[in-house]
């Protein structure tokens, strides 16, 4: 009998949970789905918002599958524009630009000083996967440099830029292509090597309010904050370029 009572309590508790999650518009904080490369700077702009950082492509998929996002900030125009075209988001706006660098672990075991050195024997290169913005930009840059053959040195294709940063910072990979803004948080572990300006990919970040955003007002306020002078100053301080 006691066991049955316990089961009942459990059922009721579960039912209670189900009711609870559906209800809340109590906190008027925006839920922001943002590209991994914004992990450090966005909480500086608005510490109160709820963040979900991942590869822009994954975030777009999550929003398409109905995740309750208020704002979508991507490291590429491709995904916000696509959501806009599908009627899932308001018109996206450019809020920042970025550029790519090559990073190597501080001990630099493979002795890499330029993209050409990546061709060395046994060099372990980590890049973003195809379809992930950093992965696509990396391929563009290498193509611009006529160095697409270094893709043969790739040992892992990561699902977002933080995966690339992590494996290089750990010293497990010899080199990786990341955004210049990813370097600062791990500056004591990696060395950044600048790439020729002419070879750079056009990295533009776009932000949009998601259609039917659960926290509509907070969403618009967040976007205004990012586009406003204070938000832009913080983005600039983090190394992002102006829109």
């Amino acid at each position, binding site marked *: 009998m006691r066991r049955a009572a316990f089961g009942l309590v459990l059922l009721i508790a579960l039912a209670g949970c189900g009711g609870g999650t559906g209800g809340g518009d109590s906190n008027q904080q925006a839920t922001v789905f943002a590209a991994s490369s914004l992990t450090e700077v966005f909480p500086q702009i608005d510490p109160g918002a709820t963040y979900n950082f991942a*590869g822009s492509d994954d975030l777009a998929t999550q929003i398409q599958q109905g995740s309750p996002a208020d704002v979508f900030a991507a490291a590429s125009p491709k995904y916000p524009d696509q959501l806009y075209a599908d009627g899932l988001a308001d018109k996206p706006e450019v809020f920042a630009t970025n550029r790519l660098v090559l990073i190597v672990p501080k001990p630099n075991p493979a002795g890499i000083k330029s993209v050409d050195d990546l061709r060395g024997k046994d060099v*372990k290169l980590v890049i973003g996967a195809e379809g*992930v913005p950093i992965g696509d930009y990396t391929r563009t840059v290498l193509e611009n440099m006529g160095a697409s053959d270094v893709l043969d040195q790739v*040992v*892992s294709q990561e*699902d977002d830029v933080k995966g690339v940063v992590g494996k290089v910072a750990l010293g497990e*990979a010899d080199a990786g292509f990341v955004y210049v803004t990813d370097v600062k948080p791990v500056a004591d572990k990696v060395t950044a090597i600048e790439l020729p300006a002419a070879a750079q990919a056009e990295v533009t970040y776009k932000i949009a309010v998601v259609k039917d955003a659960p926290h509509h007002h907070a969403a618009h306020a967040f976007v205004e904050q990012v586009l406003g002078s204070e938000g832009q100053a913080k983005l600039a301080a983090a190394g992002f370029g102006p829109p």
Partner: protein
Amino acid sequence: MRRPFEVLLGLAAGLILAFLLVPVLALFLRIPPGDLLSQLTSKAAVDALIVSVKTSVIAHAVVLLLGTPAAYLIATRHFRGRALVLTLIELPLVLPPAVAGIALFAAFGRTGLLGGTLDAFGISIPLTQTAVVFAVIFVSSPFYVRLAVSAFESVDPALIEAARTLGAGPRRTFFRVALPLAAGGLSAASALAFARGLGEFGATIMFAGSLQGVTQTLPLAIYAQLDLDFDVALALGAFLVVVSVAVLLTVKLLPSWTRFTLISLAPSARFDSS
């Protein structure tokens, strides 16, 4: 009082069954079966299949070769610290996969505990196919060893004793008596451990990375294809469901097969149980 309670039980059972089955069924219903099959022949799917089969088979061979004698030792010898050894073997079972991944880095990474030593021999494990095998062994061997210990423990000690008094050495006793008698349990353990290894994700994506045709196993391919080609991800998922069902059926069907081999391989068992 009794009837409403029965209804409640039935309701709970029905709810949990539906919750478990609907997602699995939905996997098959989302796209037509024909498309599902054709997606499986895509390059990414085939590459992942080859990587998964290769790494799983190698890892499983290691698990069986080392795990079986280890389990026999733990099951049949009563030494100091035996309980501790068993608990340590069980630890990776409850360890979150991400912890396994970071732990493998800490041990075998280039800057890890054994990394320097391995480096001296020109061996680098992280982000290679070997790393996949390491990750699979790390998560699947505890499964096998734990279940194999139980399998050996369930062998009647009187039979082992009888074999010894009849003059069989310890090696002969192991191969001719203990191993055949535990075969059913060992096979079930083997099948479950193989399935666990095949589904390994967290430790692999951290320690081995994800590269098509090299380290991208089936679960990693599902993750990678999620935003590239959802249909391929679905097809791979459906395929792994079929494999899992096959493993489960094997395990379920094993006991009857065991009884059969038990009688034919070890006639003494008949006398003992009568």
